[in-house]
C-alpha cells in the first residue's frame, strides 16, 4: 500500500516543518486539486502543530481557501491525503471529521435565535435539554455575549454575529477550529478587537486552529506560524518574525510587508550593481559575478541618520515625494546617480522633524549591506 511508507522518509525534505520535535495535529500530504486546467493546489504538504494557530496567507486565488476546504472535507482533492489527530480522514465526509468552522459570511441561521444557533449541533446529539442550555450559556460567556441568547442574528452587529458563529463552531468541543477569513467582513476597529479576542480565546482553549486570510497584518498579529501560499503552492512556512525578517522568496518579501525590489547583478565578491549603483551586499553566498539576482530592501531599513559620504552604501538621493501616513512618512527617493531607480523609504516623524526633510531636497541615505536581501530571479518555489 502506498500509505505505508517509511515515516522518516516522509518527514525528509518534503515536509517544510521538519526538524522540530512537534506533535502534528493536522497533516497535509501531497494534496493536489484542479479546477479544469487551473491547479488550485499543486502538491501541497504541511503539518499543523497541536494547539497552535496557523495562518494560511496569500493573495486571492492562491489556493488557501481551497486548502482549508480540503482539510474540512468540503472539497475533494484530486490526490493526496489528510490526517487529523493522527487519523487518516481522506475518505471521510465533513461530518465524520472533527472540526468547527467559521465563515466570512458568519453563516448564522437567520430564523434561529442566538441560543438555537449555538446549540444547533448539540440538539442533534440527543443531549439533555438542561445540559445543552448550560453549554450554550457557557459558550456565549466565553465569546463575551452572555446576554443575547434570545435575539435573532439580524438584531446583532457584525462583530457580535461572528462571535456567535465562533461559539457555534466551538460548541461540540472539536479538536480543530477552521476560520475562513473570519474578520474580512468587519469594520476596521471591530476587526482589530475581535482578532485579539480570537487569539486570546485560542490560547486559553489550546485548540489547534487554522485561519485563512489575505491580510498580512492580521496574520502577523495572530499566528504562531504562517504558511505563505502563492499559485497553489507553499512559498514559506515560519513564525511571523521569521517570515518578515527572512522571507525565503521574492514573492514572500513583496507580499508580507513593503519591500523595495530591484533587478541587480552580482558585481564581485560581496558587491552588487543596481543600474549605475555599486553596493556592498551581505548574503550573496558566493554567487558568481554576472549572475542576475533580485535585491530587496524594506522601506524602514533605509538609514537617514548618521550617514556620511564615506560610510558603506551611502547614496545621495533627491526626495521626490512625501506621503504623510501619520506616525511616519513614506518617501519616494531617486538616487542622484541613477534617476531611473525609485527607492521608497519610511522616515519617522522624529527624523522628519530633526532633519527637516522636504520634497525636492537632496540628502544622503544609507542602504545597510546586511539589510539587502538577495533572491534568485526565478524564485517560484523558494531560494
Amino acid at each position, binding site marked *: 500500500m*502506498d*500509505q505505508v*511508507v*517509511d515515516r522518516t*522518509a*516522509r518527514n*525528509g*525534505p*518534503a515536509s517544510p516543518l521538519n526538524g522540530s520535535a512537534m506533535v502534528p495535529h493536522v497533516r497535509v*500530504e*501531497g494534496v*493536489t486539486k484542479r479546477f479544469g486546467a487551473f491547479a488550485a493546489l499543486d*502538491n501541497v*504538504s504541511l503539518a499543523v502543530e497541536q494547539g497552535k494557530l496557523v495562518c494560511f496567507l496569500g493573495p486571492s486565488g492562491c489556493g488557501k481557501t481551497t486548502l482549508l476546504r480540503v482539510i*474540512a*472535507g*468540503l472539497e*475533494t*482533492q*484530486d*490526490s*493526496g*491525503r489528510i490526517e487529523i489527530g493522527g487519523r487518516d480522514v*481522506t*475518505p*471521510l*465526509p*465533513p*461530518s*465524520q471529521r472533527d*472540526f*468547527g*468552522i467559521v*465563515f466570512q*459570511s*458568519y*453563516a448564522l*441561521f*437567520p*430564523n*434561529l*435565535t442566538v441560543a438555537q444557533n449555538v446549540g*444547533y*449541533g448539540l440538539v*442533534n*446529539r440527543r443531549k439533555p435539554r438542561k445540559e445543552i442550555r448550560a453549554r450554550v450559556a457557557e459558550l456565549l460567556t466565553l465569546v463575551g455575549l452572555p446576554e443575547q441568547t434570545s435575539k*435573532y*442574528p*439580524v*438584531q446583532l452587529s457584525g462583530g457580535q454575529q461572528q462571535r456567535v458563529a465562533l461559539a*457555534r*463552531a466551538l*460548541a*461540540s468541543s*472539536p479538536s480543530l477550529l*477552521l476560520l475562513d477569513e473570519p474578520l474580512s467582513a468587519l469594520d476596521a476597529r471591530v476587526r482589530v478587537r475581535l482578532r485579539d479576542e480570537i487569539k486570546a480565546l485560542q490560547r486559553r482553549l489550546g485548540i489547534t486552529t487554522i485561519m485563512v486570510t489575505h491580510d498580512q497584518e492580521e496574520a502577523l498579529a495572530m499566528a504562531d506560524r504562517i504558511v505563505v501560499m502563492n499559485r497553489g503552492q507553499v512559498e514559506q512556512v515560519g513564525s511571523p518574525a521569521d517570515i518578515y525578517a527572512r522571507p525565503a522568496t521574492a514573492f514572500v518579501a513583496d507580499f508580507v510587508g513593503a519591500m523595495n525590489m530591484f533587478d541587480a547583478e552580482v558585481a564581485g565578491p560581496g558587491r552588487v550593481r543596481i543600474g549605475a549603483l555599486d553596493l556592498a551586499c551581505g548574503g550573496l553566498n558566493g554567487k558568481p559575478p554576472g549572475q542576475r539576482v533580485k535585491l530587496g530592501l524594506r522601506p524602514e531599513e533605509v538609514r537617514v541618520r548618521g550617514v556620511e559620504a564615506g560610510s558603506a552604501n551611502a547614496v545621495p538621493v533627491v526626495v521626490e515625494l512625501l506621503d504623510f501616513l501619520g506616525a511616519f512618512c513614506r518617501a519616494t527617493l531617486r538616487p542622484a546617480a541613477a534617476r531611473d531607480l525609485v527607492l521608497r523609504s519610511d522616515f519617522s516623524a522624529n527624523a522628519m522633524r530633526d532633519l527637516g526633510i522636504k520634497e525636492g531636497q537632496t540628502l544622503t541615505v544609507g542602504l545597510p549591506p546586511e539589510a539587502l536581501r538577495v533572491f534568485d530571479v526565478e524564485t517560484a518555489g523558494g531560494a
Partner: protein
Amino acid sequence: MTYAATVVTQETRRITAEDVVMRVAIVALVAFLMLAIALPLATLLSKSFQDSTGRFVGLANYVRYFATPSLVASLWNSFWVAIVATVIVVPLAFLYAYGLTRTRMRAKGFFLALALLPLFAPSLLSAISFIYIFGNQGFLKTWLFGASVYGPIGIILAQVFYCFPHAMMILITALALADGRLYEAAEAMGTPRWRVFLTVTLPGVRYGLISAMFVVFTLVVTDFGIAKVIGGQFNVLATDAYKQVIGQQNFEMGAVVGFVLLVPAVVAFALDRQIQRRQVALLSARAVPLEPRVNPLKDTAFLFYCVVLGGLVAAVLGVAVWGSFITYWPYNLTLSLKNYNFAEFESNGFGPYFASLHMAAIAAIFGTAIIFSGAYLIEKGQGFASGRALAQLLAMLPMAVPGLVLGLGYVFFINAKWNPLGFLYGTIVLLAINCIAHFYTTAHITATTALKQIDNEFEAVSASLKVPFYRTFARVTVPICMPAIFDIAIYMFVNALTTVSAVIFLYGASNKLASISIVHMDEAGATAAAAAMATLIVLTALTAKLLHLLLDRLVFGKLQAWRRR
C-alpha cells in the same frame, strides 16, 4: 525514497447514509421529470414519424401536413393573428407599465392589481365577454360595421386582453431596472426629454420589449381556449390539433400539428433566454435606482391613460360576470342565478367545479413540495453532478412547451401499449401531474431565486456540526423560503384552476374540469352558463390570492419575526 511515492491517487469519498438519502432523492427527482416532461414529449415526437399502425414512416406525415391547404392555412392564420395581437398589446402594455414605474401618478397599486386581473381567469373568459359585446346578439355589435367578431377580430381582441398582464409584468421589471445616474448625467448635459427617452430609456428596456413580444407571440400561437370559443370557422394551429385528435382521431396528424406548435415556442424561448442573459449584464451592481420626479402634466396624463386601460380590462371581465347573472340574454335582462344551476347544462352539475378545486389543490400541494425540494437538490445538493444538471435542464424545458403540446404528449405517452402507467389515464392525479409539469419552470425559477439568496455555507456548517442536510433543510431552509413557497403554491393553484390547453385531452368522464366544462357548455350554445362557470373560477382564484395576501400579512408577520431588526 522520493516524495512522489507518498502521493496517493484520489480515494473515493466514503458514502454515508446521508449521501444515500441525497442520491435517492436526486434519482427520484430525475425520474419524475423524465416521466412527467421528457418521455411524453419524446412520445409525441416519435408519434409524428409513425403511421396509424405504429410503423415508422419518416417525414410522410409532415409532407402530408404541408400538402393539405387547410392545415397550412391555419399555420398562416396563427402567425398573422399572433403578430397583429403582439403589435397591439406591447405598446399598450408599455405605456401602462411606464405609468406605473416612471411617473408619480396616484393609486399605482390599484392599477397594477386591475391590470393583473386577467391572470385569474381562463383565457377563454375574455372570448365569452367579447361575444356578449360584439357577438350575434352583442350590445355593441354595430360598432364592427357588419364585420363578424367570430374570427380573427374576436381572437385578436380577446388575446389582447388575455396577454396584457403578461407583457406588462415583463415591461415593469425592465422599466424598474433603471440607473438613476444615467438620467442625472443626461440632465446635467442639458439633454431634451425626447432625446433622453430615445437614448437612455428605450435602450435600457429594449431587451424587456423584445422579451415581451416573444412572450405575447408564443401565448397567442399556443392558446387554445380563445380560438375555440370565438374563432368560428377561422382555423388556427391550436384548434387544428384539437380537431385532428378529438374530432378525427387522427393522432399522427395531431402529433405533427403539436410539433409544428412546438417550433415557434421553442425558438421564442431560446431567443428570450439569450436576451435575458444580456439584460442582467445591463445593470451594474452600483447603479442607483431611479426616483421619478413629480410632473403634474405627465402624472395626470398617465393617470388618465391607466384609468381608461384599467377600466377596459375591468369592463371586459365585468361583462362576462354580468352576463352570467342575466336570465336570458338578450330577451330577459332580469338578473338571476339561473345560469349557475349547472345541472341544467352539464350532466355533472357542480361536479367540474369541484373536480377543478380538487385537481388544483393536488397540483398546489404536491407540485410545490416537488418543485421546491427539487430546486433545493439541484441548487444545494452534493454529489451526482450529472443527475443534478439533467434535472435542471428538464426543469427549464416546460417553459418552451405549449400546454396543448404537453397534453398531446401525455395522451400518446400514457396510452402507449408498453406503458405500465396506463391506469392513470383519465384520473385526477394525471391531470394534476400534467399541470405541475406544464407550470414547472416558472415555479422552479421562483424557488431557485429564493434558494440562491441563502448563504451557501449553511450546508457546510451543518456538516461540521454533524447535522444531516435534511434536518437543516427542514429547520432552516424551508422556514426561510416560506414566502417563496407560498408564492409557488398559489401560482400552481391559480394556473391549475384556469388552464384549458394543458388538460383538454386528459380529463376522464368522472373528473371533467371546470375550464373544460366551459368549452363544452359554450359549444352547446349555453354561453351564459359558460360565463357563470368562468366567473366562479375567477372568484375562486381571486379568493385564493386574497387569502394568500392576508396570510402573508397577518400570520407570516408574526412567524417571521426574525426578519425584523
